[in-house]
């Protein structure tokens, strides 16, 4: 185009000075007319005749002007405004239609916007690390432990570091709870991490004040140092810059504060508040396996390439150490490591599900639009015959549907706002990144995009159908209600079938998760005391004197005595591990008389130190032998109790009582312990983990300074928390109490992710079901209304009410059968994606696959029965007269 500027000028003039331009157009046409008349007069006819002739040759003047306006593109915006006004009027004119459509869209768009906000906050929002895409977390996994994302030992790390090429200098870290004390203030326990010197530079984060660890500060013998989080700095030190150089006690170890880290650093855990330097002492034996690696991939290295290199390193380590079987170093991107792989999968599944809900909503509204299009056929035909172009009609109808969708979107925004608030409020505490989930500009953009595109989607087909209405037939049909053309009826039936199929798919998915969640709720964790009657608290004495066994045991006996004296307390005990997922320690052990292949290492299992009362307090059954007693102490013969799973795995078909095992293994200097009892399996690694073999050592013989106090109350245990805290701190104010809560709370927390997934998917399936029901109800009532005449004839000819009902219901049931069939097929093909989210049931669970279609059929029958009953109330006389 030659003159963009002058064109713009013309266009602006057309828009802004509309009246003037219109007037000029008038004048121009008028001039033409006048010349025409003049010409007629010149030929000698009368003025009147000349005028008539001129007007005749000029044709439809108005239409001509309209075309000129079109040529100026003047109409584009003006028409849009007209369309909007007209659309709004049309929507106002049909309240029920508009409300149903807007509600359906609000549900669809709203739930999508909410879900998008959640997924965006968790999956897409940029992490606050320099070039975070290149950061990876390295785990270790090996038989017999077989944790997919397990930990490694310092020796494994050193081997990896020696052979590493893919990463910049890899760092090592360990997460642990840390008691901090000193410098006044109540001692408290926070989430901490012990990290190698390169940790912070690997992440590319700078401290708020002070410094991070310098190279070499992770060598053996380095003095203890700490980097504080901003939160702890504000809380305990009033944000004073003088904090640098001060000494605090971290797990009783005096450590110099060298820096304060920004709040945005949330690694290795989201709630990490303190980092200490990790001295890489040369390993004297294999283990302990406490550590994970974090490293920055070199430029050009992909996650796959890094994984391949680590696989090779794992092969080499396995050749050197025959103990390791199936050893791998799984690598995850930093985000996935923070988020957890299960969360990502769940979010993808939920996004898919909510997308299907939107699809159903769109189909529903398309269906309503089609129904309305039939009613408006005459309106369209009239406008066509009055000279409106088909394109103009399509645009007008599209404007209407986009307007509808945007209204739905705005209403949906309210839904989404409520939904996000609900999700945040109901966050059980361990959903990652939930606090970065909010309705923001991204959500708003998403909502607008979805609204407009859905508006176009559900508007396009009905709009084209309407605009291409056949003038002749439609006009001829006159006032009589016409029957639906077979084509349009078929389109609507296909839409309803797809709705039924999609909702069935969601129903099956929700059913599977519900059943799986019920299974999860049925898992006991291995103890029989009602969870709400158990209160647990982690006790860490800060004073270094309690590192001494005698002083420590005395302190704990006093704590136990005070706890037992509290009103309502039936029993109290100590343990360093708790179900369902608070494993304390895992280590190697040796069986007396065992033969290891050269280089083979002893197996690793959970080791639990506990006082005599633990099994009775929790209600862990004694299978044989005896529980610990008060008399199992330093002065008596060392003993151990093993779990059933332990006995089965390590002493199959043997009498386990009387056998001797040793903590750690040969050369550890530990004594042989005689197995005196076998107890039921308890879950320490989460409810979904198959029983992990474990053995127990009596607290009197295996002192550990940080223990869980477990209290069994005669009633609800929650109210004991305050009392317990007072009593314990009355013994020694320097004792930290952390993680106070009932077992019930711990169980709920441990299944929060599956509960989150289940509730959301069930909610989505519910919405889908309602929408599908509305869809089928709409179709059937519409077709009943269309067939009033036919019904009248049938009844006049002797059809009974039952026949009419059967006829109408049959139509609905036929649709449902096809839809259910398709939906089942889809479910069969898709549910295996849910496999890793399911617990205790198959992805093709027959019960779910039977119940969901049944439920769907019931809903369809209900939705059909209302219009069916209405059909029977048709009076033949009235129907025939119409």
């Amino acid at each position, binding site marked *: *185009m*030659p*003159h963009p500027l*002058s*064109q713009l000028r*013309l*266009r602006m003039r057309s828009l802004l000075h509309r009246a003037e331009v219109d007037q*000029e157009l008038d*004048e*121009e*046409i008028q*001039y*033409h007319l*006048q*010349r*025409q008349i*003049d010409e007629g007069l010149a030929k000698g006819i009368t003025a009147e005749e000349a005028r008539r002739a001129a007007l005749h*040759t*000029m*044709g*439809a003047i108005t*239409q*001509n002007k309209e*075309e*000129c*306006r*079109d*040529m*100026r*593109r003047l109409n584009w915006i003006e028409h849009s405004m007209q369309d909007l006004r007209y659309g709004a009027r049309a929507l106002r004119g049909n309240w029920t239609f508009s409300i149903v459509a807007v509600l359906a869209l609000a549900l669809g768009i709203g739930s999508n916007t909410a879900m998008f906000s959640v997924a965006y906050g968790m999956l897409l929002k940029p992490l606050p690390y320099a070039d975070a895409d290149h950061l990876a977390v390295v785990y270790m996994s090996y038989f017999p432990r077989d944790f997919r994302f397990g930990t490694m030992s310092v020796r494994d790390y050193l081997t990896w570091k020696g052979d590493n090429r893919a990463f910049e200098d890899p760092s090592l870290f360990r997460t642990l709870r840390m008691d901090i004390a000193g410098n006044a203030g109540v001692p408290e326990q926070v989430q901490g991490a012990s990290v190698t010197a390169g940790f912070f530079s690997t992440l590319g984060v700078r401290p708020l004040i002070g410094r991070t660890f310098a190279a070499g500060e992770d060598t053996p013998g380095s003095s203890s140092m700490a980097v504080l989080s901003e939160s702890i700095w504000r809380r305990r030190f009033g944000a004073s810059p003088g904090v640098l150089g001060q000494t605090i006690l971290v797990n009783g170890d005096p450590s110099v504060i060298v820096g304060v880290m920004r709040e945005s650093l949330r690694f290795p855990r989201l709630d990490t508040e303190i980092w200490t330097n990790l001295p890489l002492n040369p390993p004297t034996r294999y283990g302990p396996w406490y550590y994970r690696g974090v490293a920055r991939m070199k430029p050009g290295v992909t996650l796959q390439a890094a994984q391949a290199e680590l696989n090779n390193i794992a092969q080499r380590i396995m050749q050197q150490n025959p103990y390791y079987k199936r050893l791998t170093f799984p690598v995850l991107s930093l985000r996935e490591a923070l988020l957890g792989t299960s969360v990502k999968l769940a979010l993808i599944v939920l996004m898919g599900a909510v997308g299907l809900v939107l699809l159903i909503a769109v189909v529903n509204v398309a269906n309503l639009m089609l129904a309305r299009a039939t009613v408006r056929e005459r309106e369209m035909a009239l406008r066509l015959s009055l*000279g409106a172009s088909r394109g103009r009609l399509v645009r007008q109808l599209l404007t209407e549907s986009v307007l509808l969708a945007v209204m739905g979107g705005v209403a949906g925004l309210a839904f989404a706002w409520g939904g996000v608030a609900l999700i945040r409020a109901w966050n059980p505490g361990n959903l990652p990144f939930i606090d970065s989930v909010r309705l923001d500009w991204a959500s708003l953009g998403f909502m607008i995009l979805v609204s407009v595109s859905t508006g176009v989607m559900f508007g396009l087909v009905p709009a084209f159908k309407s605009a291409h209405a056949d003038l002749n037939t439609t006009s001829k049909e006159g006032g009589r209600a016409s029957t639906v053309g077979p084509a349009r009826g078929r389109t609507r039936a296909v839409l309803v079938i797809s709705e039924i199929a999609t909702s069935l798919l969601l129903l099956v998915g929700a059913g599977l998760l519900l059943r799986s969640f019920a299974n999860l709720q049925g898992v006991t964790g291995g103890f029989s005391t009602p969870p709400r009657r158990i209160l647990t608290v982690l006790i860490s004495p800060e004073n270094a004197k309690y590192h001494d066994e005698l002083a420590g045991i005395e302190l704990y006996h006093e704590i136990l005595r005070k706890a037992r004296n509290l009103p309502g307390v039936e029993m109290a005990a100590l343990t360093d591990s708790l179900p369902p997922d608070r494993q304390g320690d895992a280590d190697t052990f040796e069986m007396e008389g065992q033969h290891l292949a050269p280089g083979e290492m002893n197996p690793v299992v959970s080791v639990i130190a506990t006082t005599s009362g633990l099994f009775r307090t929790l209600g862990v059954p004694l299978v044989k032998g005896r529980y610990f007693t008060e008399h199992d102490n330093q002065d008596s013969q060392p003993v151990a109790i093993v779990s059933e799973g332990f006995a089965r795995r390590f002493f199959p078909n043997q009498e386990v009582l009387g056998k001797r095992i040793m903590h750690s293994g040969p050369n550890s200097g530990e004594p042989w312990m005689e197995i005196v009892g076998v107890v039921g399996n308890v879950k320490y690694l989460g409810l979904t983990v198959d029983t992990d073999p474990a053995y127990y050592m009596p607290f009197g013989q295996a002192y550990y300074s940080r223990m869980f106090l477990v209290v069994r109350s005669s009633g609800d245990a929650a109210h004991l928390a305050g009392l317990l805290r007072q009593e314990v701190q009355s013994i020694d104010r320097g004792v930290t109490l952390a993680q106070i809560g009932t077992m019930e709370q711990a169980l709920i927390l441990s299944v929060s992710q599956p509960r989150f997934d289940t509730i959301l998917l069930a909610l989505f399936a519910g919405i889908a079901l309602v929408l599908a029901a509305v869809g089928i109800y709409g179709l059937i009532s519409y077709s009943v209304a269309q067939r009033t005449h036919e019904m009248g004839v049938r009844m006049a000819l002797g059809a009974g009410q039952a026949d009419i009902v059967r006829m109408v219901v049959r139509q609905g049931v036929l649709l449902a059968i096809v839809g259910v069939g398709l939906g089942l097929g889809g479910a069969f093909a898709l549910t295996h994606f849910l496999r890793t989210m399911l617990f205790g049931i198959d992805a093709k669970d027959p019960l779910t696959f039977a119940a969901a279609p049944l439920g769907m059929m019931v809903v369809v029958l209900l939705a059909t029965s209302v219009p069916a009953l209405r059909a029977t109330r048709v009076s033949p006389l009235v129907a025939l007269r119409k």
Partner: protein
Amino acid sequence: MSKPTDLVQGTVDLLILKTVAIEPMHGWAIAQRIRQLSKDVLQVGQSALYPALHKLEQQGWIEAEWKMSDSNRRAKYYSLTRAGRRALAKETNQWERLSAAISMIVRTA
């Protein structure tokens, strides 16, 4: 909706461009000129003429100016722009090729 069936839209454009290339002219005069030059064979009705004029103006090929006409009334005079002159050359060229091709076929067949 009554476009002349024997005159394709592009042809009207070409005729208009050619006509106003001679001198600035108002709509009526353009129609008259086309009729005269074609010896009454081609008649461009105003229903085709004015939309085409407004389109060409919008495209920037012609520009308009209000002037007093010979009949002493205000009329809108269209004249060719530089871009219009280029377009005319191109369209003429194309038209000649097209019509030559068509006549070749019509004659031989």
